[in-house]
């Protein structure tokens, strides 16, 4: 932390992420849907590992309950029935 190109940029970002995660939780969305990790541009393998891990975890949580597309699809299906 604090080794950002924008100096304290990641320190500030980290505060916002903490706040947003708590606020999402309060709004009814799992905080795990938002994740922040610090990976340098020289750490490609770690970047891949982080993103893959996130995708895996997010799949376990299931689709976004606020997805507009999904809501539209279910409306269409109801109309068909």
């Amino acid at each position, binding site marked *: 932390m604090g080794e950002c190109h924008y100096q304290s940029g990641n320190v*500030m970002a980290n505060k916002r992420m903490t706040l*947003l995660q708590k606020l999402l939780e309060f*709004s009814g969305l799992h905080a795990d849907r938002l994740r922040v990790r610090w990976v340098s541009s020289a750490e490609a393998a770690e970047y891949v590992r982080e993103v893959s891990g996130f995708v895996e975890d997010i799949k376990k949580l299931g689709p976004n309950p606020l997805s507009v597309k999904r809501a539209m699809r279910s409306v269409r299906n109801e109309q068909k029935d």
Partner: protein
Amino acid sequence: MSKKIKETVRTLLVEGKIRGFLGLIERDGHVMPHLFGDPQELEHLSLGDHGRAGDARYPLNQILIQLMRAYPEETFAVLVRGCDERGLRELFKWQQLREEKVIPIGLGCPEELARACECEKPFPDNLLDGPKGEKVEGQKVARVNAMDIDARLRFWKAEFDRCIKCLGCRNICPMCFCKECTLEEANLIDSGEIPPANPTFHLVRAIHMVGRCIDCGLCEEACPADIPLRTLYKKVAEIVSEEFGYKTGYTVDEKSPFNIIEVK
């Protein structure tokens, strides 16, 4: 109850210590903000109680900002409750008002109002009149905290779905002083859409209230759709207090953790 306040303001006006007193006046059965320049007008002074305690409050600090932009060299007195005093402190820090040009006239809130507000500190430190009430333990946030996560989502979705995007919550806010507002930025918030993006629209405002919201509750009073905005902003205050140890408006020298640029 207003006797002490009237006397103090009258003295300030007569001695020429202030250009005016920004308070509330009752005229033709209506309570409205007023800049008292003449001591004789003080007989119509109102403290914001009309039908119920504190049911005719206005964002006086917002008007004060406009006044002081127009008359930067003048000194004004302003009626403040506990929340307004917290607001003044933050507005000094944000350099929207100059402390040496503002004389707060402190009014404590009656228990009835403090309870309705679930107010943590229903009196200003600079208390001139009114009671020095006790802290009220809040239930609003606790009730939502107690729901399971899916119930919370349903709760907020239903509340935010009633939003007609009138921007009344922002317009009445004494702490909203930005010249450009994210809520009107077409690249971030779609225009012509009602309700506005749910819950993004309200969460954006909630995030922007960090280190600003002083829990006056005017947003919730102004909301024509009865959205429990205060519960949302009280939660933001709870998070900022628990995670970062900052309580908005309670100190004069400390800045919001979201305003401090930490260089290590």
